[in-house]
């Protein structure tokens, strides 16, 4: 009884804190939107998948590229151990189509941002700084690094990422891709709300 009343007092005290956390600075809509219509971009990405299927016999995907590069780096440090791993027996650590796709994507985004005057050149996203501390470089670096670890492990386990499952697998009506896509957002929405709205 005493515990429950204590808890409710704590909850009441927390409410203003939660309300204060929802200040305007972390409203994503106050920052710039897309340069082009998202429908136009989506349609062009849809056409791009037709080209990759036709010319390269490959669906769009990005996450395997990181695994291949990680394997190449692993081979430099511990060649025999890396080659003994099941994943690298099935997926050779080498530069392939998808690694080049990701390298190209860096260049393509650079050109698009430069052409549209949207190059950022910043170490912290403004919305991050608005929510966490100004100049919180260390926190952002650690969060992005851990996020990357979770994301890549999850992508390999699920069998793809937002491109491989979310676009290519989903458009081919793979049941697993739609399940994975729903889970990407379920996990992401829960975590993002805890980060920004609690």
């Amino acid at each position, binding site marked *: 009884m005493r515990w429950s009343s204590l808890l409710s007092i704590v909850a009441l005290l927390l409410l203003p804190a939660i309300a204060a956390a929802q200040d305007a600075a972390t409203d994503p809509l106050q*920052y710039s939107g897309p340069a082009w219509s998202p429908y136009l971009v989506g349609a062009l990405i*849809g056409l791009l998948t*037709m080209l990759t299927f036709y010319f390269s016999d490959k669906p769009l995907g990005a996450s395997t590229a990181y695994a291949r590069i990680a394997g190449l780096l692993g081979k430099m440090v511990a060649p025999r151990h890396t080659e003994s791993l099941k994943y690298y027996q099935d997926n050779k650590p080498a530069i392939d189509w998808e690694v080049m796709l990701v390298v190209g*994507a860096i260049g393509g985004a650079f050109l698009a941002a430069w052409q549209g005057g949207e190059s950022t050149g910043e170490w912290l996203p403004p919305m991050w700084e608005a929510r966490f501390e100004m100049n919180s470089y260390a926190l952002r670096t650690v969060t992005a690094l851990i996020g990357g670890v*979770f994301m*890549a492990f999850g992508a390999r386990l*699920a069998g793809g990422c*937002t491109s491989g499952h979310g676009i290519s697998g989903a458009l081919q009506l793979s049941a697993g891709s739609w399940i994975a896509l729903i889970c990407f957002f379920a996990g992401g929405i829960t975590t*993002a709300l805890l980060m920004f709205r609690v």
Partner: protein
Amino acid sequence: MSATSKAEASKKLPVDKGGPEKDTPAKKEFSAKQLVQGLLFGLLFGFLLQKGGVAKYHILLGVLLLEDFTVVKVMLTAIIVGSIGVFSLYALGLVKLHVKPTRYAANIIGGLTFGVGFALIGYCPGTGAAALGQGNWDAIAGVAGLMLGSYLFAEASGWLDKTLLKVGDRGKLMLPEVVGVSLPVFLMIFLPLLIAALFAIDRFAAR
């Protein structure tokens, strides 16, 4: 269990879903021609991702906070156009399909893990590359994490392959088989539903 259910599944839907996606000697993805094509398609992909705004941290976090639906608009339009396009090319015999395998446990647990990482990093593997190209230097730490996580998975892959990846392994299962209709019938119902969802989002979402 999985072998028989896979065989049954492929009997139900007369579609060639493509072979296993492992590296085989027959695969040409390491050839110079493939590498050049990958680079060119990557340039287009990255250009489009940046123009679509999905290389921006606040747009990606915006969809996870259910406030900015740009990502959903881009993805759903790509799925609709790509689905019509790729299945048309397939019907004409011009392309092979690469249907992704369905493994219930791995899809769900891996998907949720991916989602947690998605919110923490604020980019995904494709849009992270685009964010880096755009000049969001915090993506460098994210890319390092993506490589580290991939290697950690490889470390565990021998064990996962024998355990979690076998749970609910249904092979290259497609949605029409789940519902029990043919591919054209499914597309004729499903694609209009996706288009309707897109109209609803456009009508009610602030962005």
